[in-house]
């Protein structure tokens, strides 16, 4: 492994005026790589315990049925079976998980296993534990469950009629509904020269399907009542908030541990039901239990992304292409159980006008249950669906009015000089230059030779199209937005924690409250701490992964919603600053001077202007930890500090649903070129450009890696990935054989560019950017629309996913989608 002896030349932009060579902004080697490229990572399924039992769930074949009886007797007779758990036991031993929404959603009873009813194919009915994985699976085949099938409902709009009600105790399938009304939409319609109406748009159900499925190994200590969960949970803070009350124990009784996680993308946030079942089993059988979720289990039963239908979109437009806003009715299908989902009813409001200066927006939002797999936050969560809507609006309006979609974007983008820009509902876009990012994207994709590309494609019998996808990645949630959803909820603001210590041999040890799944937290943390302590990243030991016992996490700890660069590194910077201050105080006490005379350079604390008078870190560590006689009594220094980072937020105005919901807004502008074979509908993405602006980049390679990954997932979602159900409620894409994710040959050549609009609101000027807002989906839909339609004619791309047959249908029956759009000109 190459040692980083090089001193980087880029100036550190932290404090104004003071420029210092720094590691921030450098592509230092990633600390995580050494173990991962040798297969020495520790993922949850690698952890083994003596005499552990393997858990396998009995899952429902019915989409909706009453459970009349569960007979585990035959399973228990099988040699090697340790025990079982059924819904009846769960209903006695635990309380339902608390619900985020207001009634009717609040009245839903959600347990670790199905109680009384199964509500989707794959819903866990019972669990069996056995000596080997295979035996546990054999035993589930001996569990006899008697079902009484009930009618089921798979479509969100249909479900709203409440003819089939999933949760009797809630009395309705509506989880939450509300109307958001900002500016003066009716006046805007009056003032418009054109009113464009779009009857229906649909964002398809897909998910980022992390390569490692979920799972856990749970141990129970009978003496202390302590559970230890080796798992893949992305938000242990919130996981514990759900599980502890259900298990009727204090929150400290749940210790979450993870070192390496094989991708999360939001799909590993709502694991509390399966984890609670494993906790009950570990206690009941008094032995460690290990649950590994297989791919088919994950697709059929463990979290899809939001599926959202947009109806009656109305867009007032001035003659010159300026849009005044929009109104829409949105129906969000959250599957069988809402769990984290009610937040999705609000989170889109972080980017209400998208990248645009629209001041009048009205959204009638309803979330509904259906007999499908439960939904959970998936990369781009809720904002991606909304941003796709705003981008479809811009492209359709431009197409209908015969305007250039690029000019219409530039006319409506928030201008560079308007930042920080307050949106109609009180969110503040911190910094950016959307038009400039668009220009870079156009340059990268060779926009000026557009006509040649079109003719070349036509000469080969292909139809060419180019499209733009502009999106925002809002990061660092103000959880006060949950109060807009349900005023009784006691969540607001955000927080993250880090600890830093200088130990006896001078080693700096840092722990985090976050749960990295590939974002390189150990590396970027080491860069920040090294720059503050004046040493090199190699001298910083950042503990890998997460452990509740490190006591370096808070209620909202975790890795989600594009926020590590702000909350995670904000906590790290806070802890490092505190440690640096204490090191200076200690050195000053030893040298008998003031702390301000001390500087931390080259892994030493030394007197400014007198480099010989220097104490290496080892000396500072040894003095305080083992040789502290003679230190001044008033010197209050521990060299072991804990810092909680809290972004400044206010509670929102619940009446007007108004307030700042997110701290930072990274920009992603993508351009995509497609060639369609009109005879078959098969199309290829022939060129792709992605430009991002996420403030100061801590580790450019890691930032670009996030852009590559988010784009690949978006292109998969735009071309083949849909969770499709048959009329029985069977999922037809339950594995990677039928659910086609992009492989190496599927990916287009990708060009990337960037600018850095420093964020004025964050400690390091950086912005979270991991989610990406699904720009690839918007860009592909725009490119297909550009290829297929001409002014006011041709089909309308109305779905987020367009497989080959979808494009072929658009070509064969353009009128079917054309009639979705109408233009009223005054």
């Amino acid at each position, binding site marked *: 492994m190459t040692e980083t002896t090089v001193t980087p030349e880029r100036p550190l932009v932290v404090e104004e005026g003071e420029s210092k060579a720094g590691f921030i902004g450098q592509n230092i080697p990633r600390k995580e790589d050494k173990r991962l490229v040798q297969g020495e990572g520790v993922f949850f399924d690698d952890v083994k315990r003596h005499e552990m039992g393997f858990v396998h769930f009995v899952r429902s074949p019915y989409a909706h049925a009453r459970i009349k009886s569960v007979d585990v007797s035959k399973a228990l007779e099988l040699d090697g079976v340790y025990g079982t758990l059924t819904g009846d036991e769960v209903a006695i031993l635990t309380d339902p998980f608390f619900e985020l929404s207001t009634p009717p959603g609040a009245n839903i009873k959600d347990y670790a296993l199905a109680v009384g009813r199964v509500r989707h194919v794959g819903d866990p009915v019972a669990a069996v534990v056995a000596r080997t994985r295979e035996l546990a699976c054999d035993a589930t085949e001996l569990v006899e469950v008697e079902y009484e099938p009930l009618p089921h409902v798979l479509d969100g709009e249909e479900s709203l009629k409440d003819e089939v009600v999933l949760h009797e105790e809630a009395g309705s399938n509506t989880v939450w509904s509300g109307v958001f009304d900002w500016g003066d939409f009716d006046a805007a319609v009056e003032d418009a020269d054109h009113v464009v109406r779009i009857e229906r748009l649909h964002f398809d159900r897909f998910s980022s399907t992390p390569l490692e499925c979920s799972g856990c190994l749970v141990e129970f200590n009978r003496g202390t009542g302590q559970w230890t969960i080796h798992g893949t949970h992305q938000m242990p803070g919130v996981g514990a908030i759900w599980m502890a009350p259900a298990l009727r124990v204090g929150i400290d009784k749940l210790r979450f541990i993870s070192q390496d996680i094989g991708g999360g993308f939001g799909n590993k946030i709502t694991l509390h039901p399966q984890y609670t079942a494993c906790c009950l089993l570990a206690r009941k059988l008094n032995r460690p239990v290990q649950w590994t979720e297989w791919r*088919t289990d994950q697709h059929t039963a463990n979290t899809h992304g939001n599926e959202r239908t947009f109806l009656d979109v109305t867009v007032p437009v001035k003659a010159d292409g300026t849009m005044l806003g929009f109104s829409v009715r949105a129906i969000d299908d959250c599957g069988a159980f809402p769990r984290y989902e009610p937040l999705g009813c609000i989170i889109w409001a972080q980017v209400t006008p998208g990248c645009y200066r629209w001041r009048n927006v009205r959204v009638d939002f309803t979330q509904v249950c259906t007999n499908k797999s439960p939904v959970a936050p998936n990369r781009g969560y809720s904002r991606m669906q909304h941003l796709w809507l705003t981008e479809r609006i811009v492209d359709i309006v431009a197409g209908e009015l015969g305007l250039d979609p690029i000019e219409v974007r530039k006319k409506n983008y928030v201008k560079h000089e308007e930042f920080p820009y307050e949106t109609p509902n009180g969110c503040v876009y911190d910094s950016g230059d959307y038009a400039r990012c668009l220009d870079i994207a156009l340059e990268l994709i060779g926009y000026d030779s557009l006509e040649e590309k079109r003719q070349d494609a036509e000469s080969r019998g292909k139809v060419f199209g180019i499209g733009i996808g502009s999106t925002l990645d809002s990061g660092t949630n103000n959880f006060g937005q949950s109060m807009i959803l349900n005023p009784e909820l006691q969540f607001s603001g955000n927080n993250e924690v880090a600890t830093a210590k200088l130990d006896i041999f001078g080693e700096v040890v840092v722990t985090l409250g976050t749960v990295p799944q590939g974002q390189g937290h150990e590396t970027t943390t080491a860069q920040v701490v090294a720059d503050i302590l004046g040493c090199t990243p190699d001298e910083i030991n950042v503990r890998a992964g997460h452990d509740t016992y490190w006591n370096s996490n808070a209620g909202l700890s975790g890795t989600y919603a594009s926020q590590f660069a702000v909350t995670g590194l904000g906590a790290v910077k806070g802890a490092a600053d505190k440690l640096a201050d204490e090191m200076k105080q200690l050195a000053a006490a030893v040298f008998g001077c003031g702390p301000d005379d001390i500087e931390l350079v080259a892994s030493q604390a030394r007197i400014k202007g007198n480099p010989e008078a220097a104490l290496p870190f080892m000396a500072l560590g040894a003095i305080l930890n083992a040789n502290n006689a003679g230190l001044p009594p008033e010197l209050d220094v521990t060299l072991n500090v804990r810092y909680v980072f809290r972004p400044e937020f206010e509670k929102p105005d619940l009446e007007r649903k108004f307030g700042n919901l997110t701290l930072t807004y990274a920009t992603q502008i993508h351009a995509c070129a497609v060639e369609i074979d009109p005879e*078959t509908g098969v199309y290829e993405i022939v060129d792709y450009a992605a430009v991002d602006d996420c403030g100061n980049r801590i580790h450019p390679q890691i930032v670009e890696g996030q852009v590559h990954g988010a784009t690949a997932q978006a292109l998969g979602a735009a071309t083949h990935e*849909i969770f499709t159900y048959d009329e029985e409620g069977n999922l037809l894409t339950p594995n990677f054989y039928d659910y086609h994710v992009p492989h190496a*040959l599927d990916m287009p050549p990708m060009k990337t560019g960037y600018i850095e609009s420093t964020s004025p609101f964050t400690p390091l000027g950086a912005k979270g950017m991991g989610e990406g807002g699904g720009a690839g989906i918007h860009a592909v839909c725009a490119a297909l629309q550009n290829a297929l339609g001409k002014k006011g004619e041709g089909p309308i791309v109305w779905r987020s996913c367009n497989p080959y047959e979808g494009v072929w249908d658009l070509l064969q029956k353009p009128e079917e989608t054309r009639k979705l759009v109408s233009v009223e000109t005054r």
Partner: protein
Amino acid sequence: MLLREVEYARPASVQEALRLLGSHEGARALAGGQTLINVMKARAASPDVLVDLADIGELRGIELASDGTVTIGAMTTYTDIVDSAEARARPILGEVCKQIADVQVRNRGTVGGNVCSNDPTNHLPPLLVAVGATMTILGQGGERSVPAREFFLGVYMTAAGPGELLTKISVPPGKGDGFASVPIGRDGTCIVNVAASLDSGAPTLAIGCVDAVPVVLTPDSAAEETVRVAVRGANLDPPSDVHASADYRRHLAEVLALRAVAQAAGRT
């Protein structure tokens, strides 16, 4: 992902394999395992006994006869065919094998396993029918040859009955062949595939993915209109599934038939 209990045997000779296969009603031959093991992992089907053919040398290898006929052992892998000089006597064989799945699958998956599993979306059933291949089946009663066209009987059903083994496939020489398909993503599962050959007497077309077995058509000529009429005349009734409707498959069959014939015509 977790198999049911199964018994496993690894005979050294074809005779030993036939004895094992004949001695147990639930015995199945295990070739490359790239389909059978997955079906067993899903517990969608569970043979009681697996007879692994890996150690039977005589089932592997590719020979080129003086008259240009290529004879491929049933246990020959796709990679063997892609890399084989002998197989270049019929270039379309290597070209199509190279499009199957990925390196790992091509290194283990076998020609015999592909045709005997006869999944409707497999590449080789339509290809071997179009190029006029002949299958050799060895049973307790001795050896018999079956033309490819009569080998495929139904989904997962072929002329090789229980207790019998496909031992080799013979492909006559020829150049004028074509293969066109629409896969899900590059090198993915085929939505529709069509093989065409102008070298085996009259033009021969075999359409895959539209029925339990390849649909064989022999238009009078390779002219576009003739081929189009032949495909429409077959009034195909393809299945609908999550990747394509029956209408879309019917349309693709026509387009791909023309493209396969055009490719074949360009290479005679």
